[in-house]
Every structure is written in structure tokens, then in C-alpha cells.
């Protein structure tokens, strides 16, 4: 049976299929997605209210992707991101306080206050950098995979990129190189149908991007990126294959961002083909909402547990923020330090 169109926001509003899944793992998914959502909602408000000086690209609505992928990774893997990478990093279990500190430009941040929201680095979590030049990290991730292969380690590389980034020719080059080198890399394309203001239908002849993988014979999967269980299962299988030496794969996750391209606004006005109706439809496909509904279907009494969890997360997010606010800015002599090793 052919799947309903994943790009149509009227589809996929119902609870996700969790049958056969371990309840504790599902609750972990819920916790991780909720933590990322709360962190980003807070960043939105703080950016609006002038606490944050630089741009923040929020991924609210897309949490199921990194949360579904990350349980199959470990800290010796190499994960690369882009401008919208808070969730990629947090899903690895990385410190929220350090993320907030970085966004605020504090010395205690992930990049020691030198990078801000768009330039994140956390080697202990296996996060090898995110940058806002589109597709800038994609060939670097291929290089990390080649490095893992040459050193005969079991590490793999993960490159998160968007549907817009795929339009940079370097992505095609990277997939071809990865394939011919049998490099252990998973390309994860978060297809949220937009590159800043432009809907994919104005940029590409098809709304699905995995066709680019076909050209390099990179096996690919298209899935509902707002279904954390589907992401989890697909990523687990792909990562197992990649770790066992079978070469690169690509997973295309259809999703949508609730905020506009940058900062806290919905950007209906600047988005070509972005409407409030679509945003509301996509809110009905909210990955957290759908997982919650599935959990409640299993067991109604879980609601209390989820409420407690939410209270705890709210406290954690708030205290991480307050801690970061108190932290110092980098000293002035840091300006010229670190240009060279």
C-alpha cells in the first residue's frame, strides 16, 4: 500500500504506533523531546525579550528526529550539525546549561562563548561541530567517517542537514565520495519543506530529497519525522548496517518547524507559501503530542507520571537558564587567543 503523502500537513495526526516498544524507552523519548521543546520555547521568549543578542534557529516541532536517532549512537561517534542544532546536541545528553551559556555568549558555554547558538562543539558527547554555512559540515562528516574507517574503529559519522542544504552541490559530491569510499556515515535530512522563506516546491521539482541519494547508490529511507518510534527503528537498523561496514545511508525525515526560520516569530508574513493554517495542521502532527496520546492509550494512569516529569523538566530548564545568566563573559584577551593552536 502506498503511504499517504508525508508532505501534506493534513495527514499523520493520529497517535504513533508504539506496539512492541519498551515503555521506559518511550518515556525516555518523551522526556528528551519535552526537554528540548521547553529549552527552545524558553530561548524564543528570551530572544524576544532581549536577553539573547544573537540569532537563534529553533527546531521546535522537529525533536523526534535527533531523539529517535541518538539512542543508537555513542560518545565515540562523530555527529555534525548546522544552524538549527540545539536539538541534535541535547538529544546526545549534552549539558543544557552549557548550551544556554553558549547562546548567551558566556565563557562557560559549549564553545567557550566564542560561537553562540550557531556554532556548537561538544566533543565529550560526540558532537563535532555545527555551523551556519549551509552544508558546510557535510563533507567534514564524510571525512570523519573516513577517519573512523582508516583507524578501524567502530565509530560512525552522522551529518544532519536540511532540505535546503541539499541544494548545495557539495552534498552530492559528499554522498558520492562517501559511497565510493564505503565511509561509515549516516546522512539525516530533516526535510521541513522550507529553506528560510522558500517552500521546497519553489526550489526543487520534487518535495522529497532522497532521490539525490539514488544517484550515488546510497540506500535511503523516507519517513515520518514526527514519529519518534519510526525514526528510532529506522535509524537503529541503518546504524547497525553502517557500523558493520556496509557504507553510507540516508534517512529523510519529513517534518516542520513551528517557529519561523530564525528567532521567535511564526514568520507567516515573510515565508513564501507559509500559512497559519499549515502551522496549525502541523501542530496536530506534533511529535510530542502524538507520543503522549500513544502513551495514554497504553495506560491512562501514565498522565500523572508525565505531569511530574514536566514539572521536573520545567525546574531543570529554568535553573539551567538562571545559572547561565550568572556566568561570566569571556575575558577581552580571548579575542586574539585560539586563532591558531
Amino acid at each position: 500500500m502506498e503511504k499517504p503523502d508525508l508532505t501534506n500537513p493534513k495527514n499523520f495526526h493520529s497517535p504513533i504506533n508504539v506496539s512492541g516498544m519498551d515503555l521506559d524507552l518511550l518515556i525516555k523519548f518523551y522526556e528528551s523531546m519535552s526537554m528540548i521543546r521547553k529549552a527552545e520555547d524558553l530561548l524564543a521568549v528570551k530572544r524576544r525579550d532581549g536577553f539573547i543578542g544573537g540569532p537563534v534557529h529553533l527546531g521546535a516541532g522537529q525533536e523526534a528526529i535527533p531523539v529517535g536517532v541518538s539512542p543508537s549512537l555513542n560518545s565515540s561517534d562523530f555527529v555534525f550539525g548546522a544552524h538549527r542544532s540545539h536539538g541534535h546536541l541535547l538529544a546526545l545528553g549534552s549539558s543544557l546549561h552549557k548550551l544556554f551559556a553558549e547562546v548567551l555568549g558566556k565563557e562557560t558555554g559549549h564553545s567557550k562563548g566564542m560561537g553562540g547558538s550557531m556554532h556548537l562543539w561538544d566533543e565529550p558527547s560526540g558532537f563535532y561541530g555545527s555551523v551556519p554555512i549551509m552544508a558546510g559540515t557535510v563533507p567534514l562528516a564524510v571525512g570523519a567517517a573516513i577517519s573512523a574507517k582508516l583507524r578501524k574503529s567502530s565509530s560512525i559519522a552522522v551529518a544532519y542537514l536540511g532540505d535546503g542544504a541539499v541544494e548545495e552541490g557539495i552534498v552530492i559530491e559528499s554522498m558520492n565520495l562517501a559511497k565510493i569510499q564505503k565511509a561509515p556515515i549516516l546522512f539525516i535530512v530533516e526535510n521541513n519543506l522550507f529553506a528560510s522563506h522558500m517552500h521546497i516546491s519553489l526550489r526543487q521539482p520534487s518535495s522529497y530529497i532522497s532521490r539525490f541519494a539514488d544517484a550515488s547508490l546510497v540506500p535511503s529511507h523516507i519517513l515520518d519525522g514526527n514519529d519518534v518510534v519510526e525514526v528510532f527503528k529506522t535509524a537503529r537498523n541503518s546504524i547497525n548496517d553502517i557500523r558493520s561496514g556496509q557504507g553510507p545511508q540516508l534517512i529523510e525525515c519529513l517534518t516542520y518547524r513551528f517557529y519561523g526560520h530564525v528567532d521567535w516569530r511564526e514568520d507567516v508574513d515573510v515565508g513564501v507559501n507559509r500559512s497559519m493554517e499549515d502551522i496549525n495542521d502541523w501542530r496536530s502532527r506534533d511529535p510530542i503530542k502524538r507520543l503522549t496520546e500513544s502513551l495514554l492509550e497504553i495506560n491512562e494512569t501514565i498522565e500523572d507520571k508525565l505531569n511530574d516529569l514536566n514539572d521536573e523538566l520545567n525546574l531543570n530548564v529554568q535553573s539551567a537558564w538562571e545559572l547561565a545568566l550568572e556566568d561570566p563573559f569571556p575575558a577581552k584577551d580571548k579575542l586574539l587567543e585560539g586563532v591558531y593552536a
Partner: protein
Amino acid sequence: MKTDFGTAILSGFDYLLENYPEVFVIGQGLWSPWYVGTTMTDLDKKFGKERVIDTPVSESACTGAAIGASLTGMRPIIVHPRMDFMLYAMDAIVNQAAKWSHMFGGQAHPGVTIRGIINRGGEQGAQHSQALHALFAHIPGLRVVMPSTVTDARDLLIASVLSPDPVIYIDDRWLYSQTDELEEIVELDLSKEGPECLMEGNDLTLVASGFSSMQAREVCDLVANKGISLEIIDLRILNPFDASKILESVRKTGRLLVVDGGWKACGMASEVISSVTEELELGALKSKPLRITLPSAPAPTSATLEREYYLSNDRLIDCIINLVR
């Protein structure tokens, strides 16, 4: 009525699209109000989406395509909302556009205009801040244009597009809000344009381009109050570079300060100082020439470091006073 710099650019586009059917514009963000400030607002609605093309995120292909169109009878303008993004198009610009005229015996004319916007500050950091004019000014075959005044914003854009050569037109968003009276449009021959004196003075020749020229104009009165008379020369055309007006000025003032929004090493400030001093008579200088540039580091994000990184008017005034003293 006064017009702001951003609107002056818009009126340049308007004039070109209105009067030259072979002009078209291609680049990212052209159908959205926020990508390029107010400089291209509603051009797509007025002239149609066929001639004002918003694109996939493919700087390399779009720039190459604009060059190809220019070889075959069109006058395209390719717009890069940030210079940093333009680096994906380096082959198209440096190996192709800059080379084709000479390499094919003067028969090929890639008369493309490549607009790169400098968009820095606001804690955007290392990859969203660069002022790379010197990088392009290094390349023979490219004309590099950097307007600083409201009139130049419009008229040098028009001259760039009418030029048969590849032109890098660089505008800095920090200039957009300045306002001035706009005169009637004059179609300039870009090959005849060069540095211009914006302010006459006797104590110090201050050479700058783009936003740095505006800073120079801003501090001019303040240092005049302290008894220092500045002569300000705005570079306007960075390549091919003509030092003659600057040389003349330095002969008069005996002092040379170059303020540049790029880096020091192999930068535009270095080019100005060497071009002038290698021609200048020995003993003509009353003090050593000075470059004020960015520190030799990528742009930081943290607000506290950003304040150190970019030149403030106060620091500029101090440098001027020290130099003249």
C-alpha cells in the same frame, strides 16, 4: 527629500530593470522582505518573477549561470545576501568571470554584476560577518566597487551593471540607514571612476571605503573641534586601484591613515599605503602611515568581544589625535 542608502540601491535596480530589458536579477531572498533589507522590496511584483528570480540554495550554480547569461547578451545581477555565502561561488568568480576576457583574447565579455552584502554584528559570528573586498580586489579582471554614499549606492550599481566587465559590488548593511539628497541619475562609465575626496582638509589624509568612509565622515566634525582638519578620500573603486588622488592629498597633508573594515594582512589598507609610499618623495611624510583594520581574528559572537572587535568612533578619534600630535 532625503533618501536612505537602502532605498537608493532599490532605485538603482528599478532604473536598470525599467530601462534595460537585458537586465535580470537572480539570488537568494529576492521574494522575501527580510533577506536583503529594503534594497529589493517588491521588485518581483513590479518586474515579474521571471526577471527577479529567487533561487535554490546553490550559490555556485547561480553565480555560474549569471556569468553564462552575461556572455550571451544579458546583463545579470547575482545577489548574495552575505559575502560569506559567496565563497561557494569562488570558482565561478575567480577562475571563470575574472579570466574569460583576457584568456579568450578579449573576445568574451562576462559583464556580470555580483552583489555581495556585508552583514555583520549582532552576535552572528565568524561565518556571518566577513568583509572580503580585499580578497576580490586581489584578482585582475574583477572590478571591485564599494559605495559609501547614498548617491554612489545607486549610481555605482547602475555603472556596474552597464560595465562590460565582471564587477563585484559590495554594500554594507551598516550603511543602509544613512540619508542624503539624491540627484538625478547619471549613467557613469565605471572604467573612469576612482577614489573621490569627500572632505577637504590639511592635517591628515584619511582613506577608507564603504562603512569605514561613513565612520570617517562621522568623526570629521568631532576632530575639527579639536583643531584637526581631515581630508577624507573614499576609495569607491578598489580594483583596478588608482592611487593618484590619494598621493596628491598626502603630498599636501603629509600624513596618511587608512581605515578598513577588513583584515590587515594583504588587505586593502596595505595596498593603499604601499601604492602611495612607493611613489611619494622621501621626506614628504610628517608621521608614519597607519592602518586601522580588524584584529587578526575571526569575528567573535559574544557581545563583549564584539564591542572590542569592531572599530568605535571613539577609538578612531583617538587614533587620529595620536597621529597628528
